[in-house]
């Protein structure tokens, strides 16, 4: 087990290095940041001074090494546009995105898994067919369109919920949260629902596929032969048996939820990191883009690692001798 953990940790570090290099090289090919930093009629001296100041005259690999060195000290550079440290900028926006992503993943899991288990348990019933039709929609309809419809329905036509923005937050540990007040929740509701739809559809599918397969297994037959009620079988046996792929996806999806938040945050003007990255792309704010991507990559690698390790906890067969296959 320990060897396995160390091996996975090393892999994670390697992946992080590769990702940071890719992101750095990729992003630094965009446009010329100098044009953003100084007015076009600035003198040649000011131009050269600025280039030197930001180290833009050095070869790319030197810039990367310097970047990497600063990165290890937690320094992601400064935003060209907002002129503040990228890390502070991203960290100030991160709680909003985390709250949104967490809310939507929870909706996806707590609504999607029961629906999916039901659809897998009674695949031929009308309700199951409706659930599956809904999941096809959730999968295929682009997030931005659903967001639009949600705003049109609940904000414009019904006027029940606010159409955007974050509304009031409550400070806990120096960070503002929406979910602690009823009013905050009304602001959170639509974006969270919007962001959760894809996850919901995915959880439904996975839970349904797993349930269908497990229901045919001898384990379920044996449980039935022992006289267990169908509900107990679903809640205890089936849920346990399908949980491994579900937890994997739950974890991995949390990462991609952060990414998809880009769209939702744009539509609902939710002040998270997603909106930040879109703004930085349009204004060619390279340090913010790089910083954001490195952070996302870091989150991804961490999540992958946690998911891999939690496999071992969930599946007793894997606990010894590392991973099977």
């Amino acid at each position, binding site marked *: 087990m320990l060897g396995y953990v160390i091996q996975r940790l090393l892999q994670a570090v390697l992946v992080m290095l590769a990702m940071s290099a890719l992101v750095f090289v990729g992003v630094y090919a965009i446009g010329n940041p100098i044009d953003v930093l100084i007015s076009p009629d600035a003198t040649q001296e000011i131009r050269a001074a600025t280039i030197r100041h930001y180290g833009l005259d050095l070869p790319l690999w030197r810039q990367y090494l310097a970047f990497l060195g600063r990165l290890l000290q937690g320094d992601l550079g400064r935003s060209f546009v907002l002129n503040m440290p990228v890390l502070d900028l991203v960290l100030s926006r991160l709680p909003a995105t985390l709250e949104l992503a967490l809310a939507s993943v929870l909706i996806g899991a707590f609504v999607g898994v029961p629906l999916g288990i039901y659809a897998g348990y009674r695949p031929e019933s009308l309700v199951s067919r409706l659930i599956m039709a809904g999941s096809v929609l959730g999968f295929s309809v682009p997030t931005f369109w659903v967001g*639009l419809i949600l705003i049109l329905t609940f904000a414009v036509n019904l006027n029940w919920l606010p159409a955007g923005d974050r509304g009031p937050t409550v400070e806990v540990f120096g960070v503002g949260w929406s979910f602690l007040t009823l009013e905050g929740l009304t602001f959170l509701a639509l974006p969270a629902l919007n962001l959760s739809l894809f996850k919901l559809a995915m959880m439904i599918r996975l839970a349904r596929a797993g349930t269908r397969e497990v229901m045919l297994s001898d384990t379920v037959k044996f449980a039935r032969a022992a006289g267990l009620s169908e509900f107990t079988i679903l809640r205890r046996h089936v849920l346990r048996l399908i949980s491994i792929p579900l937890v994997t996806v739950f974890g991995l999806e949390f990462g991609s939820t952060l990414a998809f938040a*880009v769209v939702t945050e744009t539509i609902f003007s939710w002040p998270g990191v997603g909106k930040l990255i879109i703004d930085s792309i349009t204004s060619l704010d390279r340090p913010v883009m790089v910083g954001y991507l490195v952070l996302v990559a870091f989150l991804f690698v961490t999540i992958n690692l946690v998911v891999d390790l939690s496999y071992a906890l969930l599946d007793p067969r894997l606990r010894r001798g590392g991973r099977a296959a």
Partner: protein
Amino acid sequence: MSAFWREYRENWFAVAALVVVVLVVAAAILAPLITPQDPYDLGNLNLADARRPPGFIGSEGYTHLLGTDAQGRDLYSAILYGLRISLQMGLAAGAVAMMIGATLGILAAHAGGRVEQAIMRIVDLQLSFPAILLALVLVAVLGQGKVPLVIALVAAQYAYFARTAYGAAATERQKDYVEAARATPLPGRRVVFRHILPNCLPPLIVVGTVQVANAIALEATLSFLGLGLPPTEPSLGMLIANGFQYMMSGRTWISIYPGIALIVLIVAINIVGDQLRDQFNPRLRR
């Protein structure tokens, strides 16, 4: 083949979806013939006709069936032209991604060893990374235009094909006859083309169908975020984005109709893909 079609026909829902796909594709191809206006010719646009509701008779004398957008484009025409672009992008991206992905996947399964490990590591890594972020960054790096967009879509999607092809080819590789064929001095090419490729095709077709829909959705999303194609040739996503600001004031048609066209197309393709998946999956047969 006829048996396949007979089974397909049993699901009327899937048949309806297929009909919709065919109709939409036909309408997109025939767009110049069945629309009153070329919405990409700026000379045709009259700002006096802008933001008119459906049924408005414009300065050119014909009825705007679905109204007009903020630039005075006839929405019906703009939607069909937008569908053209969406389909072009989706199909081009899907085809290129399938070729690259399938090649990599089969190569990995066929070559084995380090090549296999290296390719699949990269593919898996990329699969765990959200496609939309990758596409976003690439579009930002490469700039706006059709080619950059297709490159971004391909980069975001090829990994799905590689995974699928690899999975099918690796299963096939373990079967005895492929082992036997590999042991004989037949050229590897023949093994690949005669044995491995045909068995990879069904899952690739299923993934391909769904990925074309995904590419269309992704393109629309990028355009909605303002990072897709140039605004002079609005795709469906951009039409929707442009109408977004007018939605609050009740001019919902500018966003709604292009959106409906987009959704109908994407959902129909997905339903067709689902049916194909069910039919290709022997495990679900009873």
